[in-house]
């Protein structure tokens, strides 16, 4: 496949993940593999920020790359970290000249056979969620067209990940909402059953339910569900102490 066609089809592949449910690691592995195939680079890797703000290696096109990225995180110095911290691209055409900037990383990178590096922030407006690292065995800058293409890959992946997070969070919140609402409903139903069987009012029924749930260390909604499905009979609930003052 010609390079332009490969580039286009990669964008389509990445964009596909915006519609269907997808796995973030799969997406990032695809992205790092395509970077090596489409762009003129030796290795590619992606780091994402964890909820606590620290970076994690998420995908690498090779084991060498993976080890180098892990080293960068351990040493807390290197182009990927700089790009993530500043939110700006970090270009280094000659790793030999970068001993001052990244004393430990530049040695490790050269030992691994790399001569130049480009780190791009994965950023949407203000939010930087990680960085894409491209390493090369040759000296010198990447071509302009490769940089543009890499930028496009990073942007699409960033949007896909942010979208995935938003959807996931909404789903989680909605599940919580439905759970809370259903818990409430089953508690009201149990109150009705207890009130009817024990010939007491709703407040007294709720007191009995709550007293028994605390005495037996059972969640209120769990006990209520047991009353509703008949596993616990209203008459078997512990008698709450009498109310002395209102």
């Amino acid at each position, binding site marked *: 496949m010609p390079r332009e066609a490969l580039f286009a089809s990669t964008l389509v592949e990445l964009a596909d993940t915006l519609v269907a449910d997808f796995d973030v690691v799969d997406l990032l592995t695809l992205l790092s593999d395509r970077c090596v195939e489409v762009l003129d680079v030796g290795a590619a890797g992606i780091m994402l920020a964890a909820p606590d703000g620290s970076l994690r290696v998420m995908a690498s096109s090779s084991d060498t790359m993976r080890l180098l990225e892990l080293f960068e995180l351990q040493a807390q110095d290197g182009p990927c970290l700089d790009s993530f911290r500043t939110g700006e691209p970090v270009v280094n055409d000659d790793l030999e000249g970068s001993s001052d900037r990244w004393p430990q990383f530049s040695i490790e990178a050269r030992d691994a056979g790399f001569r130049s590096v480009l780190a791009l922030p994965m950023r949407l407006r203000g939010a930087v969620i990680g960085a894409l690292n491209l390493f090369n065995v040759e000296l010198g800058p990447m071509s302009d067209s490769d940089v543009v293409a890499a930028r496009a890959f990073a942007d699409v992946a960033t949007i896909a990940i942010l979208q995935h997070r938003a959807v*996931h969070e909404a789903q989680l919140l909605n599940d919580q909402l439905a759970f*809370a609402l259903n*818990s409430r409903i089953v508690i009201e139903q149990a109150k009705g059953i207890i009130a009817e069987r024990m010939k007491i009012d709703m407040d007294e029924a709720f007191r009995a339910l709550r007293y028994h749930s605390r005495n037996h260390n059972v969640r209120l909604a769990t006990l209520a569900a047991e009353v509703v499905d008949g596993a616990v009979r209203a008459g078997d609930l512990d008698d709450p102490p009498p109310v002395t003052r209102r």
Partner: protein
Amino acid sequence: MTGAGIMLMSGDMPRGSVCSTDGVSRLIEQLQYDLGEGPCVDAYRTNIPVLEPNLAIPAAPRWVAFQASAVEAGARGVFGFPMTVGAARIGALNLYRDRPGALTDDQHADALVMAEVAAQTVLLLQADAPPGQLAAELEAGADFHFAVHQAAGMVAAQLEIPVAQALVRLRAHAFGHGRDLVDVARDVVARTLRFDNTVDRDPPGEDEPTA
């Protein structure tokens, strides 16, 4: 638009009304809660907007029980928009007007945006709630008809039937007597109405469908 309201749903069922702009909107939501049918219920279940621009003379008959009562209340066009955030379905935005007529493209687009904003807002409110509990703002502003569930529990005990069946009996009683489900439920909770296979047949002559 004449009026609007927001209904929360879960498990394919209306769970309660969060807000409504006027009495007719409230009634339209109440009817859907009582009957389990209507534009919001369909919008939630199918996850697409459900539009009925001429409720009095619909192109195809639907919502047999809902339609007559909603028209009688003054609704001529009813529109339900699903409230979703990604794959999460939260409820439906309910719009009505007192004269027939389709929504313009702009109105349709605005309604879609409003439904999404409403969905986001509900989730944001719920985000601050303690686990397992409803957000206080939702609990305070919304009407989740808890009396209906208390009454279902009482009727279940009276008739020795599961609560789901008891809820069907309550709905049937309300429908058969032309009453609000919530009013019937309040009578049960106040113990002025009992379901013991005789009293709930009052007034005599009316056939109570059994669940």
